[in-house]
């Protein structure tokens, strides 16, 4: 590993438990790079996760880290940030953790526009439990609980986040690691709820069952199916079929929850003094 990144990791914990070719490792690295590059104080940075393969990431990262319970990372993070708004709070979560069991905290954290940097590792599956479909598993895909193909529809999570109130939303992939890093940095700089959907891959539980080839093939797929929003704007709709957008999808500053709360405290203080 690049020497200057090593202080961001708990090097002695590596190699991580993830399977060969799991996209999560690539994304975790992008997060570390973004934190490094953003220049925020590492001693004042907290990383929170739920439960899942992705949610194991904080254990490898050299910060105050909290591996909570399934789906509740954002609620823990809300407590941390509100209790001490000085802290930079990151949330690492999976598609299951964030959008299935954790869906409610997701929309509410977005609504409050609380200053959290959420990186959602989307591998379209519950990896940790061996490959059940998630709310982000595409319709028709196979999973251990959709042996005949998934009959449910899937969320588009940026759309949902924007509708719920997130002020910054972007999407990167494990393949587009530089873009991913830049989006995370932009999220850090956004004072408010930032969601970065990071398209990952789970060769073990999603790729194999859906005949998508090995890890390298899945990465290749990200390359070919993704299209940058800016490029997409110039293309006719038919060229976008089967593609998904990456890049900055939404950037609309809005009042941030902990700042608003601090304003209230200041106001009451002032009133009390008078």
């Amino acid at each position, binding site marked *: 590993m690049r020497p200057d990144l090593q202080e961001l990791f708990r090097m002695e914990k590596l190699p991580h438990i993830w399977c060969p070719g799991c996209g999560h490792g690539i994304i975790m690295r992008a997060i570390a790079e973004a934190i490094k590059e953003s220049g925020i104080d590492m*001693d004042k940075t*907290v990383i929170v996760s739920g439960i899942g393969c992705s949610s194991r990431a904080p254990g490898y990262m050299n910060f*105050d880290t*909290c591996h*909570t319970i399934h789906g509740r990372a954002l*609620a823990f993070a809300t*407590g941390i940030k509100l209790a*001490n708004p000085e802290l930079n709070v990151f949330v690492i979560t999976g598609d299951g953790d964030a959008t299935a069991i954790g869906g409610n905290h997701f929309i509410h954290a977005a609504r409050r526009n609380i200053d959290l940097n959420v990186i959602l590792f989307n591998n379209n599956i519950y990896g940790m439990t061996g490959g059940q479909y998630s709310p982000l598993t595409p319709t028709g895909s196979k999973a251990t609980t959709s042996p005949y193909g998934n009959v449910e529809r899937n969320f588009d999570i940026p759309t949902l986040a924007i509708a719920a109130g997130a002020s910054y939303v972007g999407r990167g992939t494990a393949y587009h690691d530089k873009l991913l890093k830049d989006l995370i940095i932009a999220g850090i700089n956004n004072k408010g709820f930032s969601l970065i959907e990071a398209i990952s891959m789970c060769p073990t539980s999603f790729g194999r069952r859906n005949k998508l080839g090995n890890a390298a093939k899945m990465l290749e797929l990200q390359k070919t199916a993704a299209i940058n929003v800016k490029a997409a704007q110039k293309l006719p709709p038919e060229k976008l079929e089967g593609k998904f957008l990456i890049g900055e999808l939404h950037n609309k500053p809005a009042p941030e929850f902990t700042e608003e709360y601090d304003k209230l405290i200041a106001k009451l*203080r002032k009133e*009390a003094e008078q």
Partner: protein
Amino acid sequence: MTVNKARLIQGNQACAEGAIAAGVTFFAGYPITPSTEIAEIMSEELPKIGGKFIQMEDEIGSMACILGASLTGKKVLTASSGPGISLKQEAIGYASMAEIPCVIVNVQRLGPSTGGPTSTAQGDIMQARWGTHGDHPIIALCPATVKECFDLTVKAVNFAEKFRTPVYVLLDEIIGHMREKVILPNKEDIEIVDRKRPSTKPGDYKPYRTDESLIPEMADYGTGYKWHVTGLHHDETGFPTTKPALVEKLMNRLMSKLDKYKEEILLWQEESTDDAEVLIVAYGSTARSALDAVEKLREAGIKVGLFRPITIWPFPEEALARLAANVKGVIVPEMNYGQLYLEVERICKDKCKTSGLFKANSEPITPDEIIAKVREVL
């Protein structure tokens, strides 16, 4: 020393004031009758002192939220009632496992399920002990007066901080909603306990290492200690392990850490027990009826006493066993179908006769009912 004025306040309000007096600066909750006043008061008072109140989207989020806040070093509180407490169970188990100080007020209403939102009950006694999955340490305190709502909330915060465990304050609707004359203690007279902060430098810090105190030191997030918290079994460093020996070491410590402090944790009241032939075991508002019954029966020359566990969990087993050995019978009046009774029976069965007086229909157990029961047993 100034003496505070007598005031008329509600049990729920006393809880809120006790929490603030104990240093709580963070509250997350979700409204539910009959606990809502606590949240309402916190929403008004906390921002005045620079503290934080947040109404979360549900009770699960509320519980998770206070645990997050506690990790930053704040003293934290949530309050709810039956349905909400049921929802909090998973996160309460996490607090036990990760040893995150927190206090949960449960103003008990009549269950099961939605039941009777404004009806009084003592039906969540066993849930407080066993609600979450797996073995875990827990403390539960049970006030019988408005004043005690204040005092025991202070104690609950102190216990949570000192022993790094979730602590319940179990009110019943009567205690939570009634107003009573109280004289609250002065700030200077309130004992405040803070969690042990690290005595080592960040590099040497092992977040779950303990000395003979069995209680690990806890660093505030954001102070450079960079530690890891997990609900998985973990070793001294805080990182997950599945090694049976390490799992056992962790669990043995968790399951015995409160034992070590029994003398401090176990609180109870004894009234007229010295020469008692019949012992009433009662807690919460029911203990007030029991006390009334004891006074009246004593006037009638009947030798009856009251054992009131204030700490319900862990249960003051030895104290009760000692008394039970000298009486003919023990009677347990409860506003449920016999919950603490099971514990009392287990403790006393080989020592004396035990019987229960159970009522869970939204009405309190009256002194007369207890008197009748005593006469029946005698």
